[in-house]
């Protein structure tokens, strides 16, 4: 879903909410592979809130 959002609009800024540790790591890795930097990861509810920024 993150990859879709990136490919669709190439946003400058994206917030991704995930449920598990594995998803958190997957999203971070996927974002980095698309040239994004992980700005911040904060626990949210039972999962995490990941803020990624282009470049």
């Amino acid at each position, binding site marked *: 879903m993150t990859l879709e959002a990136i490919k669709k609009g190439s946003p400058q800024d994206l917030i991704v909410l995930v*449920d598990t540790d594995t998803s958190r790591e997957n999203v971070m890795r996927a974002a980095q592979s698309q040239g994004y930097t992980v700005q911040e990861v904060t626990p949210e509810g039972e999962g995490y809130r990941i803020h990624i920024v282009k470049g």
Partner: protein
Amino acid sequence: MKNLFASRWGIVLVGAVIGILAPVLQKLGNPGNMGICVACMERDMAGALGLHRAEVVQYMRPEIIGFVLGSLVAAYLFKEFRPRVGSAPIVRFVLGVFAMIGALVFLGCPWRAMLRLAGGDGNAILGLLGLAFGVWIGTLFLKNGYTLGRTQSTYASVGWILPLIMLGFLALLFVFPHVPGEPKSGILFYSVKGPGAMHAPVAVSLAVGLLVGFLAQRSRFCTMGALRDLILFRHTHLFSGFVSLIVFAFLTNLILGQFKAGFEGQPVAHTQHLWNFAGMALAGLAFALAGGCPGRQLFLAGEGDGDAAVFVLGMIVGAAFSHNFGLASSPQGIGPHGIAGLVVGFAVCLFIGLTMRKKTA
């Protein structure tokens, strides 16, 4: 706290450790090219419990117990134990049943397919191709919105159930230990000959299982995920662990003199290319629909995932069905009703994949 094992080098290391230890387990007594096989070993456990009466495959495998408990330890140590359930468990149970049925047609789970390849068994090529094919079908469903729905956080003790069951099995193993030559010890069944009679010392099997469980939980190691992510996203992270396992197992086999290239006469294997392919394809599809290879399901269960626990139980029951109904293969080839098992399995997986979809906005 950074998780070093979840890095690229971390997962390559984990693959290497598994790839080295599995052939060592074989050297110490586990069956040929079966240092670790989640499907075969859960099948052996089903036999030990008397759920099936195939005399050559009855043994309470400590490796499987170790996988769950090792994962549990890792999860607690790093605060990743998350008790959760509720994502269509009945469906996962059924997927587990058919994953096992498919695996027993090939005579191995993806872990064993890799180890067989690393041992020189050419038949594993068909198995791995089939696995990739099955996973690929799974990715088609995933792309079309297939999902079993979200899990929900639950009581810690729910997440403890499968670890406790595994501890119970371990207790049985100690209370009713193997008596050489005896087909039963107390309530547990023990093979007197055949693969079930071939096992490394209990303490070694358990120790290796615990270590692998720990490392695999930390690294999110998953043989199905490796193929899925490669096919779906061209991501190679999990795949690097997959390849590492094969490479190190191959090297270890060479050193231990366990490498024998060929198709005929391979240990606990048959040469029916079509059924090797089809069996693993069914298993691969079921693993993809369930979100993890059989090893991963054990590690998830150790982390508190009750849905994965249900899949594990489904596999154990599936093993019982396989041997009771003649669905399982033997070195002579596919079982009397193996083809029917495959047909029903694919039909069920198709049904699950097609009907359990969220229509995306």
